[in-house]
């Protein structure tokens, strides 16, 4: 990269404060044209805020942004889109009842004397789908397609609007390993086309695989920048975390004689809209163990949770839950895990059901308890939970559910969208709870995570556990063994014969 080339984007001394909390402090760096530039940092490091300023959702308190050398100040996302900047948000903005086609044209409908023109625009969109191998059908309803397909619809929207600069906010957090590979191919294709990509992520391997350059944010400041050729993952992790002692996973796993069976599925079947969501599912979870279920999303994982909670009934086979109280960390933390308008303390009290009177003192005590025990970072403990960053919200939910002291815990994607430091912390607590003779069921699409935590693993495919492994199967002597195992489990997840 030569210095006399005008960068695609240049941030100059960007500062943004929310009340007394400084989200971005004097951030300056540039993104070269036609590169993949990663921005990495922990939850609450200021990545999303910076991108929202670029995209016109927030306005910065000071500093300026230059696009191809020209200073810009977008007052709304519409203005950013007009300048060919597109952003893929963590939460999708799709109309569930509309088709793929309708969602793509929404907002910039091709109109011919007042009537929406479908033929030409249909062909144009179809061309984009084929070109980037998105595998979407124009007439499919959004409510009928998978999460990864929804993400592709969002990408298609950006392409349809001729975005030259693409911002991706944690794009892979909702994808399974196979889907991540597909996604990477699409991103590389964008680069080949001459587009500029900003990738916000937590995942070090993504950076290594994709990026040309990396900027690290920590507590609102830019602390480190490096080109991909000089990338050292150890250095990078240190820069992300800062001077915090790394949390080590407790190695020792307590052994319990006579464990209780807490969950037992036997040849369970569950139909939803005439589709077999669970189809001969069998597995058990005992006390004092972590049972991990891995698989591509949509193979019955959410139905297992629904069945355990009793919100869906199995139609045949057997299901026994030998404990009434189940601690649950659900897959969708905002939609299912909390009342986002309530504070930390209120959310904890509501779940505990212990007290009848909720006075300020009690709410404060509960909040302080969780905040200190689980290292929750927040500016104001009376603020609604929605104002916390995703990782901190997860810590609150996690802490709340652990605190209930239930014998059985069901954890769905326990660290989705959570930074390295907080993930390590959550892992440590999971193992500690296991060592207290709790039974823990983990459902996750992050294979590394499942391997790291579980005593036993079940691979789910089409509503059935197709393979089960014990700890000895995934304690590896060398890297080659591990690779072999990963290949096998990957095949099992997509239903290929092992």
């Amino acid at each position, binding site marked *: 990269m030569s210095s006399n080339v005008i960068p695609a984007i240049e941030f100059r001394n960007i500062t943004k404060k*929310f009340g007394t909390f400084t989200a971005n402090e004097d951030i300056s760096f540039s993104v070269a044209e036609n590169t993949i530039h990663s921005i990495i940092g922990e939850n609450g490091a200021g990545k999303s805020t910076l991108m929202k300023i670029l995209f016109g*959702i*927030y306005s910065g308190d000071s500093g300026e942004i230059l696009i191809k050398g020209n200073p810009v100040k977008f007052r709304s996302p519409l203005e950013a889109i007009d300048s060919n900047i597109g952003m893929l948000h963590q939460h999708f903005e799709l109309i569930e009842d509309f088709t793929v086609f309708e969602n793509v044209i929404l907002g910039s409908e091709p109109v011919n004397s007042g009537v929406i023109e479908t033929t030409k625009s249909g062909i144009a969109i179809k061309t984009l789908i084929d070109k980037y191998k998105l595998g979407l059908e124009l007439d499919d309803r959004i409510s009928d397609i998978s999460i990864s397909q929804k993400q592709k619809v969002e990408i298609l929207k950006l392409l349809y609007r001729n975005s030259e600069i693409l911002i991706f906010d944690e794009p892979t957090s909702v994808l399974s390993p196979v889907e991540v590979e597909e996604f990477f191919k699409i991103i590389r294709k964008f680069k080949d086309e001459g587009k500029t990509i900003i990738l916000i992520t937590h995942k070090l391997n993504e950076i290594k695989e994709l990026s040309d350059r990396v900027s690290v944010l920590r507590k609102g400041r830019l602390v480190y920048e490096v080109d991909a050729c000089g990338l050292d993952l150890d250095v990078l992790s240190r820069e992300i975390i800062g001077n915090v002692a790394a949390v080590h996973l407790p190695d020792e796993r307590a052994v319990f004689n006579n464990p209780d069976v807490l969950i037992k599925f036997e040849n369970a079947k569950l139909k939803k809209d005439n589709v077999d969501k669970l189809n001969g599912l069998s597995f058990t979870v005992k006390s004092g163990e972590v049972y991990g279920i891995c698989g591509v999303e949509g193979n019955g994982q959410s139905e297992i949770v629904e069945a355990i*909670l009793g*919100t869906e009934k199995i139609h045949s086979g057997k299901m026994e839950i030998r404990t009434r109280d189940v601690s*649950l960390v*659900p897959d969708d933390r905002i*939609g*299912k*895990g*909390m*009342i*986002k*308008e*309530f504070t930390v303390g*209120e*959310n904890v*009290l*509501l*779940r505990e*059901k212990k*007290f*009848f*009177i*909720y*006075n300020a003192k009690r709410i404060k005590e509960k909040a302080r308890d969780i905040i200190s025990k689980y290292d929750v970072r927040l500016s104001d403990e*009376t603020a609604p939970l929605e104002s916390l960053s995703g990782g901190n919200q997860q810590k609150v939910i996690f802490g709340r559910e652990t605190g209930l002291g239930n014998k059985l815990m069901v954890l769905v994607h326990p660290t989705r969208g959570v930074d390295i430091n907080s993930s390590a912390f959550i892992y440590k607590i999971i193992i500690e709870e296991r060592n207290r003779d709790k039974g823990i069921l983990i459902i996750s699409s992050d294979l590394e995570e499942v391997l790291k935590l579980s005593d036993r693993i079940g691979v789910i495919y089409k509503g059935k556990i197709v393979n089960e492994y014990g700890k000895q199967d995934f304690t590896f002597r060398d890297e080659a063994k591990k690779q072999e195992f990963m290949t096998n489990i990957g095949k099992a997840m997509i239903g290929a014969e092992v």
Partner: protein
Amino acid sequence: MSRKLKANILSISLSLLTTIILTSLLLIIIGKNPITIYGTLISEVFGTGYGLGQALFKATPLIICGLGLALCFQASLFNIGAEGQLNIGAFVMSFVAYNLDDYLGIMVIPVAIAAGFVMSALWGLIPAFLKIKRGVSEVITTIMMNFIALALVNYLLIEFIAVKSTVRTERILDTVFIPKLSDISSVFQGSSANMTFFFAILLAVFMYFIFYKTRYGYEIRSVGLNPTASRYLGVKTNRIILWSFLIGAGITSLVGVNFIFGYKGYYELGFSNNIGFTAIAVTLLAKNNPIGIIFTAFLFGVLDYGGLAVNTLVPKEIMLVFQALVILSILAVDKVVKIYYLKED
């Protein structure tokens, strides 16, 4: 004081100011001096004990009905059926009252209130049941049940119960009336305001406590904010919906206490004068906060009586315009406060 509370007070004050300015413009257009009109209104209402008493009397049923609605609204149940619910309840209340006052004496008051409450609650059971079991929108069912309720009461009253050549029930004994405010202080001489007002205030304080300081309140509000998450958090959502609807509808019947035991002594067709609908505005304006409802109901009470007081100068309908403008401006101002004060996007 939390930032949110400050923002609420700010937006209510700003919208009142906007309304006063807009109404003034209207008054100027029709050739009246706004200062004279507002001046007369204020001196008529606040300058005399009678005027203030009348404003309190008008505010009382709005507070009570608003509290019943707040319970439904907090659980995100958009109950439009208060008008029907309260008429059924008040009708039964008076029926029980004049039939049993001879035997029970003063004790007829709680008995009649209980009977009215239960009837209104049962009337609310139908939409609640349809919503829980069949997912029918309560907005539609409650609107429709208003017509049924009023027709039913009309039929029963005219056919069987009404005092000859009137549209009212028999009057209760003088001995079972609730004391008037003028019985305590001569300041309120001649006004119909009665002790029901204090009962309404107590009820508001009690509801405030329930909503914001107890587990039930948190469960009700959580169901209103996010029913899915509430279920995952272990709240029995259907039970909350059922009871909020029943008790909310029941509370609306208490509007009858002000009229029957505090004022006329009987149920009369059209007594409610659309309180069930006006109370929706009162409640929304107060953002479902029981303490806020006392103030918004009082504002509407002042406008209601004040409209009569300035009737010689301007048509009293100008006060309806004022009420409508308050609601419109709070909707607009709220958004502005959210963007510029709370900095939400």
